[in-house]
């Protein structure tokens, strides 16, 4: 052990001798590890925010939305959900705890006393939305049933919007202008993590019927129903009932496709995870290639180094170095080289992650998990071993007398 420690020290001193060259050699490793760390850190941010979102929503939530396949959609076919569909589902499907109609409309411009903010979207919904999404007002109030009844022009603000418009800390009672119409602010929502670039903090909520009045016939294309079932076990049955009911109401023939989609929050999470997995896979492939290139670079420089130091190796063998000593020394050199590249890559990856976080507003906070660092370093060492073994054994197997006579 003591002996191998010495071999390590020898390896280090050889690397120190050409530090700049050594670092350049590890460029492939640096690129590979830096991309792993960058992507993993950004993805981790996303997936923890997604997980957070779905936890708020609860896993026993369904979302019904109009849906036509892309090909039909570009030829002008539009799917619709109506308020009557909503009422039918609420009345006829069992085991629903909460059902909420939601209309999304984007984008819009909001004005307040000369300040202006562009909205990612505004939303029309009813009072039960808050409970279903576990998202409540920070101050003021949320929508109440009578807002809907009288189609009141009231609005609840996302927390970022209030700040952007320089509204007072308790904005209730102020009037804001949305797409040239005046609305009274009744409350401000609590801040939430942003979600795949969509931030609920940047939206405004108005009564459902107010939004319907605004959008008229277009409202039913933008309509969704959010449903919470009593018990997660009932989810599939509820889905089936809704499906049958809507197919009947929409007069869909037995061989025709649904003109709506029912997603469970689990399903949506799976979809997001599939996307994330896809991205991860692509990145893994890029990383794999750059690590391979990096490894070949390392092997190349090590082979050159073995040739350059042939005589030295011969001397060490003449002085009593065993095959193992030489093997360990050169293998250690390759591994240290790779680890060096790995460490630099981790540093750059951290930096890039931070830059991405700064550059893209609304992106979740970047997290570099410990496992990614450990994995990167582990992989770097593995590359060192795999690609260092050939040069190291070439060095170890040199015949001392031939090595000593090498010019």
């Amino acid at each position, binding site marked *: 052990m*003591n*002996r191998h420690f*010495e071999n390590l020290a020898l390896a280090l*001193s*050889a690397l120190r*001798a050409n530090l700049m060259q050594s670092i350049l050699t590890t460029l492939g490793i640096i690129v590979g590890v830096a991309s792993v760390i960058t992507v993993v850190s950004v993805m981790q941010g996303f997936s923890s925010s997604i997980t957070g979102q779905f936890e708020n929503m609860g896993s026993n939530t369904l979302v019904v939305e109009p849906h036509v396949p892309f090909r039909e959609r570009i030829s002008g076919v539009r799917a619709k959900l109506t308020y009557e569909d909503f009422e039918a589902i609420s009345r006829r499907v069992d085991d629903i705890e909460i059902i909420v109609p939601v209309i999304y409309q984007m984008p819009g411009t909001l004005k307040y006393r000369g300040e202006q903010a562009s909205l990612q979207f505004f939303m029309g919904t009813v009072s039960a939305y808050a409970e279903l999404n576990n998202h409540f007002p920070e101050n003021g109030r949320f929508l109440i049933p009578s807002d809907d009844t009288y189609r009141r022009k009231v609005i609840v603000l996302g927390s970022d919007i209030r700040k952007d418009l320089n509204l007072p800390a308790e904005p209730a009672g102020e009037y804001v202008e949305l797409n040239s119409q005046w609305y009274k602010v009744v409350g401000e929502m609590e801040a939430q993590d942003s979600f795949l670039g969509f931030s609920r903090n940047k939206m405004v909520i108005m009564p459902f019927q107010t939004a319907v009045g605004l959008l008229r016939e277009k409202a039913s294309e933008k309509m969704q129903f959010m449903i919470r079932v009593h018990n997660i076990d009932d989810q599939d049955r509820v889905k089936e009932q809704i499906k049958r009911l809507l197919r009947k109401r929409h007069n869909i023939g037995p061989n025709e496709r649904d003109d709506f989609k029912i997603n469970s929050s689990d399903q949506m999470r799976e979809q997001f995870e599939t996307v994330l997995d896809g991205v991860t896979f692509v990145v893994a492939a890029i990383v794999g290639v750059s690590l391979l290139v990096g490894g070949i670079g390392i092997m190349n420089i090590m082979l050159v180094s073995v040739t350059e130091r042939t*005589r*030295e190796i*011969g*001397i*060490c*063998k*003449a*002085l*009593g*170095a*065993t*095959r*193992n*000593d030489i093997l360990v020394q050169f293998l250690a050199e390759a591994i240290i080289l790779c680890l060096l590249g790995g460490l630099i890559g981790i540093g750059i990856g951290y930096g890039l992650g931070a830059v991405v976080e700064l550059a893209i507003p609304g992106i979740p906070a970047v997290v570099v998990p410990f496992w990614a660092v450990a994995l990167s370093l582990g992989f770097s060492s593995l590359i060192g071993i795999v690609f260092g073994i050939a040069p190291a054994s070439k060095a170890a197997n040199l015949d*001392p*007398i031939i090595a*000593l006579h090498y010019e």
Partner: protein
Amino acid sequence: MGGETIRALDGVDLSVKQNEYIAIVGTSGSGKSTLMNIIGCLDQPTGGEYQLNGTMVSLLGDTALSVARNRDIGFIFQSFNLLPRATALQNVIQPLIYSGLPRKDRKAKALAALEKVGLQGREGHLPNQLSGGQRQRVAIARALVTDPAIILADEPTGNLDSNTTAEIMALFDGLIETGHSIIIVTHEHDIAEHCSRQITISDGKIVADTRVGAAA
């Protein structure tokens, strides 16, 4: 590569006992260094056999050969063969690393060896910062530091002035007194005469093997 086979050594029959003081002489290219390499377990003869301490060297594995080179033999090369990126001290420490001596004992031992060859104060210098004679003395210190039973010196005084040569020979005499064996390749008549046995090689063959009076 040249095509024609050169017999660097041919039909050499030599037996060396413990505590012998041997000079090998011969013209350039006669095969002296080749013989030393075989004795030093660096090279293997293509035919015939070599026994070291009763062991057939051709039967030793790679690691056993390394151990033998480290423990039994101190090799002073004709061309010094110092590690170019290592200081004088590190060069002398190197064989001690392979013999497994604890780190704390190595430095003291190496410094003592350097002092013996008169290089105190030069331990931090790299080989290219030393003169030819100084390099040769580093090589000698490195061969002596492990206290090997056999010292093989290929023209150890070739680059030294007569004073230093005398000091080195005195050092060798001291080693003979403590029971070591020394084999010196030399072109210098004085040194050859100084040894107790003189072997003359010509064209890879031993042409003379004479014993002279005991070392002075």
